[in-house]
């Protein structure tokens, strides 16, 4: 069993006689003080609030804040709960985590019991999940709405294996999740049979390649340090998942007498996000300010609503087009400088490109064509020789070796390691200072041309959406616009859009707010959409006044459909509209491609698409599936004329606080 740390602790904790009531009051007081203090401001910087009035995260720390962040924090207090897992709950409560998502398991039974009985099932409140992938996915979506991480509990072996894919998605999408896996380390004392099957020497090894940090604490004090450290690391950009292996023995044993005198909970003080080097920022600003055809490309640049405002300020300062790759809602699509419709032409013609938190810079300035008889595809650059490339990204700060989410290598002329949102204020300031005094007229002229291009592109997009408007199965453009017709006057949040609907919401819905669009899975692991949508809807429910809508693909839902029950059980209002194209459509096309390459006719069997890629025969009745789990539901809708009226009823149901699902048979893309 764990070695106990007998060393004396800080004087603030030593000798204190703190009752449970006093302790919690102390926590509450400290929490209130944190909110009003400079540390509170720092926390706001890394924990985005839904308020659009949030101050930029990149404010330079003042003297008091710097002192608070660099000084030694005072310990909060000791805990007096009788058992180890009670103390763990005390630690967790200081982090203000709203929910713990979990499928119950014996390896964390003690912590489970403490959370609901000692901790009162509040902060965190238990969210019952039917699959560990759902537990992580809910936390993934919740963070993207609230800026706050959730905790998930799982068996350290079997549960973590279920969770692993979702953790990888969170890793690739730069989202913090606090994963805790139960394990019973002491082979001489743990129960034989199932508990031993469910234990391992090093459960964290399973996810170490795609977590930012992990630990296996061997004492309660070690746990307190690890938990606060894990939270702090996860919440420092680039945000990433973290993992703690939690020994069952440590959870179950009573707090030792000597520990009562010494245990303390370290205070969480957020870390300011890393900013780009000031000299490199000036060099980048010079290039941008003197460019004739600059282009801004953003992927996960706007972590918060403040990030959107900053990006607008940069683009307007330069009168430069913005291409939003959609990792987050970076730029309002009603703004004339958003030029996604002309992305390829703009990139090809640019003389300076700045990429902000791009997940794949290489593919932004090069093209891979999956064709050619040699089977390795065609690689070609799409930029002019001499185009200057600038990048700001925090991802390089946590790059690991095994999983290849860092994508192909792309050389940049000015490459800055730092958080883009935190670096934007300095960059904007430098750009303003670098614009030549005689360059204003050229900027205005560029802006006027971009206004016209934006308006023309919108008309072309509308015309494209009208094609096959009355088709059955229903076109993805019609699907998107029928949904929008019902929610456009609400403060909506498109909590997920799994599958592929040809980007119609991003092209035609008005998206001005950070929560209008949350991006996608990150790692393209199927099964993200349904749980992440519900997690985001949970966040929207708590914020209040927001309508959560999800475009739900069929293949994604079938990975873990039990998450629908979780939404109904916890009264999470969400409208899910099925993009039911009855196939794993990406794979439909991949098999077709290979058949063509080999001059063979793809075998369809009894289906419409190559054997193994369809989800039909029998067709899944998603309305009945959802109804069985407590949803209001309708469908399948095949006639486009029926879609609007059905969605209208579903919206009313969701407004009343229930989840609803409408199954729609759709065109493939």
């Amino acid at each position, binding site marked *: 069993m764990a070695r106990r740390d007998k060393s004396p602790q800080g004087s603030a904790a030593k000798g204190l006689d703190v009752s449970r009531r006093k302790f919690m009051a102390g926590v509450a007081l400290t929490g209130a003080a944190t909110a009003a203090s400079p540390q509170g401001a720092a926390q706001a910087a890394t924990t985005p609030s839904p308020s659009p009035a949030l101050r930029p995260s990149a404010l330079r720390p003042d003297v008091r804040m710097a002192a608070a962040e660099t000084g030694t924090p005072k310990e909060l207090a000791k805990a007096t709960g009788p058992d180890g897992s009670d103390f763990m709950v005390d630690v967790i409560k200081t982090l203000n985590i709203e929910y713990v998502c979990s499928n119950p398991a014996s390896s964390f039974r003690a912590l489970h019991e403490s959370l609901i009985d000692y901790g009162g099932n509040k902060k965190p409140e238990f969210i019952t999940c039917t699959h560990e992938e759902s537990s992580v996915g809910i936390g993934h979506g919740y963070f993207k709405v609230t800026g706050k991480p959730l905790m998930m509990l799982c068996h350290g072996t079997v549960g973590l294996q279920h969770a692993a894919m979702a953790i990888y998605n969170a890793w690739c999408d730069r989202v913090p999740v606090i994963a805790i896996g139960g394990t019973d380390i002491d082979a001489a004392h743990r129960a034989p049979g199932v508990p031993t099957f469910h234990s391992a020497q090093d459960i964290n090894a399973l996810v170490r390649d795609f977590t930012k940090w992990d630990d296996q604490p061997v004492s309660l004090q070690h746990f307190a340090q690890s938990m606060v450290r894990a939270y702090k690391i996860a919440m420092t950009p680039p945000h990433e998942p973290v993992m703690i292996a939690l020994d069952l023995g440590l959870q179950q044993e009573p707090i030792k007498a000597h520990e009562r005198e010494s245990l303390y909970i370290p205070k969480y003080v957020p870390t300011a996000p890393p900013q780009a080097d000031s000299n490199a920022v000036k060099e980048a600003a010079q290039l941008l300010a003197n460019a004739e055809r600059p282009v801004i490309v953003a992927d996960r640049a706007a972590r918060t609503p403040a990030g959107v405002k900053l990006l607008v300020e940069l683009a307007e300062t330069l009168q430069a087009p913005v291409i939003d790759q959609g990792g987050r809602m970076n730029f309002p699509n009603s703004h004339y400088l958003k030029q996604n419709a002309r992305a390829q032409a703009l990139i090809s013609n640019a003389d300076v490109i700045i990429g902000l938190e791009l997940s794949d810079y290489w593919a932004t300035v090069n093209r891979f064509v999956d064709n050619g008889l040699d089977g390795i595809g065609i690689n070609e650059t799409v930029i002019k020789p001499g185009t200057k490339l600038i990048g700001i990204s925090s991802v390089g700060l946590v790059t690991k070796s095994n999983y290849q989410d860092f994508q192909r290598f792309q050389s940049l002329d000015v490459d800055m390691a730092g958080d883009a949102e935190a670096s934007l204020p300095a960059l904007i300031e430098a750009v303003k200072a670098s614009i030549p005094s005689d360059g204003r007229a050229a900027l205005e002229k560029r802006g006027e041309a971009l206004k016209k291009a934006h308006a023309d592109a919108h008309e072309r997009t509308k015309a494209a959406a009208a*094609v096959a408007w009355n088709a059955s199965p229903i076109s993805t453009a019609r699907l998107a616009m029928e949904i929008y017709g019902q929610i456009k006057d609400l403060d909506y949040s498109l909590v997920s859009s799994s599958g592929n609907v040809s980007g119609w919401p991003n092209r035609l819905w008005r998206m001005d707010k950070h929560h209008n669009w949350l991006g996608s899975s990150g790692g393209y692991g199927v099964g993200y959409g349904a749980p992440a949508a519900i997690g985001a809807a949970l966040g929207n429910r708590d914020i209040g006044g927001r309508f959560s809508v999800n475009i739900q693909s069929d293949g994604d839902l079938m990975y873990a459909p039990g998450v629908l029950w979780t939404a109904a059980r916890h009264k999470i209002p969400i409208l899910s509209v099925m993009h039911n194209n009855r196939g794993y459509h990406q794979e439909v096309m991949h098999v*077709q491609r290979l058949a063509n390459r080999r001059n063979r006719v793809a075998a369809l069997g009894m289906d419409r698409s*190559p054997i193994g890629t369809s989800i039909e025969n029998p067709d899944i009745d998603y309305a009945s599936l959802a109804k069985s789990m407590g949803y209001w539901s309708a469908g399948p809708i095949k006639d486009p004329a029926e879609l609007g009226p059905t969605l209208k009823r579903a919206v009313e149901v969701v407004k009343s606080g229930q989840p609803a699902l409408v199954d729609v048979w759709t065109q493939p893309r």
Partner: protein
Amino acid sequence: MKLRSVIVALAALAAGLVLCRGHVLAASAEKGKAAFLQHGCWQCHGYQGQGGIAGLKLAPNPIPFETLSNFVRTTNRAMPPYREEILSNDDLADIYAYLQSIPKDPDPNSIPLLSP
């Protein structure tokens, strides 16, 4: 010698065009719809050839048959080529007839949902 090669090439091209047009003249939109599904054209272009993020719009008003045919047979772009061994000239002509049969779409400005 060079002139002879050019003449031979032009003759072959002309024969091909006649052949192509012959196929088109004999084509069936009904068979073409079935072939459009069987050969997976719908996968990227949609059941009505409307196009989307994975494939260009094919209908209504398809591009000239010769252009379409040449592209289908030889493309080195995102679309994989369909050679005659897996998509016959007759099937390709039928597919073209199907695309030609797809009616014109409504004016986008007449659709309220597109002008919210």
